[in-house]
């Protein structure tokens, strides 16, 4: 067990930092620090392509698909330097972190060759089609249906149904959609994991306005939408295994970049507390220290998780990680507002423009819901890490 990076890894760090600063102090200076979910989307798509051209988009992937075969330590370093340079949030992240790794792991050569290079190049942007109005926490209760048809163009899947809470759907080229492909099947059985093009007649995207005032997530309607028969990842009917595999990739290296964003937020909150004197209040000071401790712990939980990932097992630290950061971040938002006081309640520009820390306060209410709510996380932790009895179901 050791924390230090080798001299070679530190040299790699210098390479990352050099490229990032050239770009972000040069052609991409306008998007430094852009955190708002939809802010400057066109420029951020250009940034994704620039990352792809320079092979910095998915450095952990094999070289033949546009990666660098980077080690975990190198991926950690890049994630840290990326955040340190205040590079913008990755608009392509559902492709680079979820769709890509899933196709790499569960897909076949045809799928890998077709889909991975454009993800790595930032040419194709992905969204996630999991949740439905009736399939939230009960994620396997999928109703969206798909069936195979044969025509002059060859065999195709036809898709009917609705997905919801689909982030960035309005910008995306492809969606990975969990569909029920075996009629009459229930729950996790009979589902398939299909890769579906978004730019077609049978797909309609309707934005949903969030409590922050933004509309980053959407409803997506599939009404006779089509995709090629060979774009099913894994065996048809066995898609639940693939869908769950995707979620385990979510606990990847990107969490370290997320932590650097958290650190920037905490530093800003500390600055405010110094300026307005809140830091003199010992109760506030205790909470600031506590926040600092939580953030540092998060870093080492992530490194523990990543170090174990090389051995191919998912330990209890991976199962507890999401709830830990989500609760931490929500409390940080509350601490920010307690420190700012009444001025935090003001909209800074009409109609509903929010100061960054106010935005943090509001947006962090979603952290303990998306990607599995705290309540579902606790069920998972209790059942998988502690071996407690499974939740009984009311319907099967």
């Amino acid at each position, binding site marked *: *067990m050791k924390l230090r990076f080798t001299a070679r890894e530190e040299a790699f760090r210098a390479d990352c930092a050099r490229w990032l600063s050239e770009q972000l102090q040069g052609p991409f200076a306008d998007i430094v620090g852009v955190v708002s979910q939809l802010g400057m989307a066109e420029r951020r798509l250009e940034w994704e392509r620039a990352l792809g051209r320079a092979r910095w988009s998915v450095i952990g992937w094999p070289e033949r698909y546009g990666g660098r075969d980077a080690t975990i330590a190198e991926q950690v370093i890049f994630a840290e330097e990326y955040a340190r340079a205040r590079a913008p949030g990755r608009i392509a992240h559902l492709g680079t972190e979820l769709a890509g790794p899933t196709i790499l792991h569960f897909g076949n050569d045809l799928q890998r060759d077709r889909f991975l290079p454009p993800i790595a190049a930032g040419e194709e942007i992905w969204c996630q089609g999991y949740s439905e109005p009736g399939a939230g926490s009960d994620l396997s209760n999928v109703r969206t249906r798909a069936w195979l048809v044969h025509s002059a163009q060859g065999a195709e899947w036809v898709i009917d149904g609705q997905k919801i809470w689909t982030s960035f759907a309005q910008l995306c080229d492809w969606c990975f959609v969990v569909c029920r492909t075996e009629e009459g099947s229930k729950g996790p059985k009979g589902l398939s994991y299909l890769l579906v093009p978004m730019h077609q007649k049978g797909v309609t995207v309707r934005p949903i306005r969030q409590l922050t005032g933004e509309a980053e997530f959407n409803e997506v309607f599939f009404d006779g939408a089509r995709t090629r028969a060979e774009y099913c990842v894994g065996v048809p009917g066995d898609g639940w295994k693939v869908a769950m595999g995707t979620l385990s990739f979510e606990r990847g290296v990107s969490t370290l970049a997320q932590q650097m964003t958290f650190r920037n937020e905490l530093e800003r909150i500390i600055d405010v507390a110094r300026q307005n004197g809140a*830091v003199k209040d010992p109760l506030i000071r205790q909470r600031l220290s506590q926040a600092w401790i939580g953030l540092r712990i998060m870093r080492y*939980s992530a490194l523990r998780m990543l170090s174990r990932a090389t051995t191919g097992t998912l330990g209890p630290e991976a199962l507890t990680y999401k709830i830990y950061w989500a609760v931490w971040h929500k409390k940080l938002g509350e601490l920010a507002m307690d420190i700012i006081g009444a001025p935090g309640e003001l909209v800074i520009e009409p109609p509903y423009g929010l100061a960054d820390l106010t935005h943090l306060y509001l947006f962090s209410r979603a952290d303990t819901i998306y990607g599995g709510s705290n309540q579902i996380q606790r069920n998972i932790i209790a059942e998988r890490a502690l071996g407690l009895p499974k939740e009984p179901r009311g319907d099967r």
Partner: protein
Amino acid sequence: MQFAFTEEQDLIRDTARKFLAANAGSSQLRAAMTQSHAYDPDVWRAIAQELGWCGIGIPESMGGAGMGMVEQAILFEETGRCLLGTPLLATAGFAAAVLHETPESTERTELLAAIACGNRCLALVATDDSGIAERYAVNAVTLGGSLRLSGHGAFVLSGDAADSLIVPAVTADGDLVIAQVDLPAAGAVMRSQKALDLTRQYARIEFNDVVPSALLADGPQARRVWVRGVQVAQVALAAEQLGGAIGALELTTTYVKERHQFGRPIGSFQAIKHRLADMLVECEAGKSAVYYAACVVDEWRSGTGTEYELAQAAALVKSHCSDMFQNVAGNAIQLHGGIGFTWEYAAQLYFKRARASGNLLGTAQYHRERLAELIGLVTAAETTP
């Protein structure tokens, strides 16, 4: 960067766990609690002399195993898990940590060598009757060319079993000196302090013109030596707290799987599951904190780390683990229901150990205030009451 245990480290844990399961289980703990110093002398002899646990972090040149803080943390985690109460923590975790930081001297080498071969119990005087960290009530006065110690120390862990004390004493100039006092010593009066925690014992020691056996550090650097040594000791204690929390969590998890009400195991109810899940979240965070802090100690000792990082890590880990252990042990009683409130059941022992360890070497609040200074929220002058 490889933040996972090596095979050798896993082996240390397995070996320790097997030994403790066979020799320091719950009935043995009950029996040990009735012994004069609240521990089983046979178990202490075995771990100190046969298994070499006291010397695991002491250099090979002094007869130790020459391993690091990570390996020590593994051991303390395992001893904490079964609430072992021997002089191990006071000797190897506290006193040896301070000795490690003191400048080289014959006395230092002899003491560390004696600890390594397991035939010496040491204790650290770290506070006064207030029990508050960094309160020193022993004064050092030079009388007729020799140093004399006067005052008192309290809450001295395993002080009643100690052969030697490590004592920080304040000089007339306000500097600190670190003295070694071999016991018995003329003018040193030892009194056991019976504590809520039944698994180990404290002592209060009165010093009346005691002539120290050796001076381990003096001059302007002595305070820094002391502070760094205590920080390492805090990491050792935090590792033990982590083990205690894990032990309480395991006890509770087993219980809720077996206990049936309403025709099903109570562990199938979300009210129970969710609280246990939260306990695990805290323990997993505790592991990250302890292993990180242990790595920082090893880096500090190997010359690649900084004093600042050590101070931060110690405050972080002692703060988190103090809260974690007290929360988890409190929940353990609650989830057991009535049986958890009985004298016979082990839940109370974890709960009381958690409170005692929370106070030792600084409470969670104390360490958060130190951290507030370290990260520049305030200056020391603004936080010290």
